[in-house]
């Protein structure tokens, strides 16, 4: 996925056709990125009601998206609209470069530090970043969250 296909930020015209295009070519492009502002997600999601489900608690909101191909992505936003956690599950792994943004290099470093043949879950456990990714073909799941940006009272177990 290319940056040029990133969300429809600044792409206000021809909504239906541009969303169709995005859905076909870049399904993960509709997402905000870990640690960044989630405002664009709200705007994007409003245009694809059939594929979203938003739930709210007093501490955060969860935007659940169904990707073409069966994978689900859940984004957790603070009341201040910052993405503090992401979860995924499904037959394929979503584009984590897009979803993890500036945190992605640390995930990739962990992947490169071990044998590529390993089916072991990939675990990144750092003071400011936790990533856990597991599964096998047709059955992947994982979470990524920012411990220092978690709203008060939210437990890591709530992220899925």
């Amino acid at each position, binding site marked *: *996925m*290319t940056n040029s296909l990133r969300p429809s930020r600044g792409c206000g015209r021809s909504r239906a056709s541009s969303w169709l295009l995005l859905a*076909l070519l870049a*399904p993960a492009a509709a997402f905000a990125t870990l640690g960044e502002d989630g405002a664009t997600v709200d705007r994007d999601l409003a245009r694809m009601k059939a594929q979203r489900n938003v739930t709210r608690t007093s501490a955060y909101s969860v935007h659940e998206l169904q990707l*073409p*191909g*069966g*994978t689900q992505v859940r984004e957790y936003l603070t009341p201040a609209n910052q993405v503090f956690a992401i979860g995924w*599950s*499904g*037959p*394929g*792994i*979503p*584009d*984590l*470069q897009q979803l993890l943004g500036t945190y*992605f290099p640390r995930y*990739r*470093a*962990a*992947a*490169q*530090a*071990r*044998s*590529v*043949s*390993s*089916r*072991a*879950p*990939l*675990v*990144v*456990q750092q003071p400011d970043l936790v990533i*856990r*990714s*597991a*599964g*096998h*073909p*047709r*059955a*992947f*799941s*994982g*979470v990524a969250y920012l411990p220092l940006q978690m709203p008060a009272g939210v437990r*890591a*177990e709530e*992220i*899925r």
Partner: protein
Amino acid sequence: MSPASRRIRLALLAAAAWVVASCGGSSSSASSSTSATACTNQPGLITSFPTTATTNAVPLVIDGGPIVGGAPVGSVNQSYVTITVCVPGTTNCQVIDHVWVDTGSYGLRLMPSVLTLSLPASPAATGGNVIGDCVQFVASYMWGAVRVADVKIGGETAPSLPLQVVGDPSVPATAPSGCSAGMPQITGVSGSNGLLANGLLGVGNFRQDCGPFCAPVTGSANPAFYYTCTSAGSCSPTTMPLNQQIQNPVGVFTSSDNNGVVMQIPSIPPQGQANVSGWLVFGIDTQTNNQLGSALVFLTDGSGFINTNTTYGSTTNTQSYIDSGSNGLFFNDPSLTACPASGSTPANGFFCATAMLSATMTAQANTPPMHTYGFCVQNFNTLSGAFNAFNDLAGPSSPNTFDWGLPFFYGRSVYTALEQTTIGGNSGPFVAASTP
């Protein structure tokens, strides 16, 4: 083993995975011990199987992997069989050893440095285009083209089997970003980008690598699976009819041994073992050597997760699975210390703790069939670099996930039944295992 190859091997181990010794435990759950006392095997594990080589049974080995440059590549807890690949309808064939048996994936994938045959392209490739195929793992992927071969394993034949030729020159060398997702690519047999196998034999619960998720009508173009690539080297995600997707060869066998597989691997000592010989048996309840008998059946869902869970301590893991392609047992227990990162080197993904534990596989919450399986976790740093097989290699996982990897297979018959089958009154997909 030469000092040089041993160093390589230890590096691989440190980078990849593993543990020593063994297990025991039984009974209740999640009790851990800080003692370094060696574990003992759980009583009742199977020490040898009466199986002999026949039409539906082929030898399976856990050893150091294929020989590259005069030495084994140095795998741990990877189980292998030998297969024969032929140009469809001909006797132009090639024997390929050390193909990794994987109940966690679907279909045959062959490494480019090994395959010498010229196999025909997928019939789905039309108008000068090529069908590109992607398979993602947790933190790596393989990319190649779909081709077709007659595949023979023991006395079983899967004719005109769509399979993946990894790194096939007919597709661009660089995978589309929706496939790679920025992860390292598996490109060869050995070394840091190696599969540590000459191929991957996916014999899990499903008949296709993607199935309805990628098929027309029931699914859609999924960037994690199929692509149409033009001769100019441009690839776009595409749907793929079920019968043209990469096929689990078991479901295509012309014999009646086509409803699943049984892996029979004898128990090993707690301290590990250099090599282990077992059996890969095709079919379930189709011959005397693959009877379900008193094995406990755990139905699985559309993802291959045990329906419904594995209970470990107070944790109900809703995403649990039995996977011969995982070389350890992976689950969450905050009381077990994960091996720490060292300097700029990230953690290796294993426990640096020793414990005797158990977990309960349950088909439905707290209702039969359910069974508590004992196992042991050994401190990664105490493992012997001289061995390739360990029944107590373990590490942390993702929330709600319990991965019963190859350590679980030692001393048990483990059954993997295909979807759309009925065996002994059980509807596939399911997994089953002997007790204890």
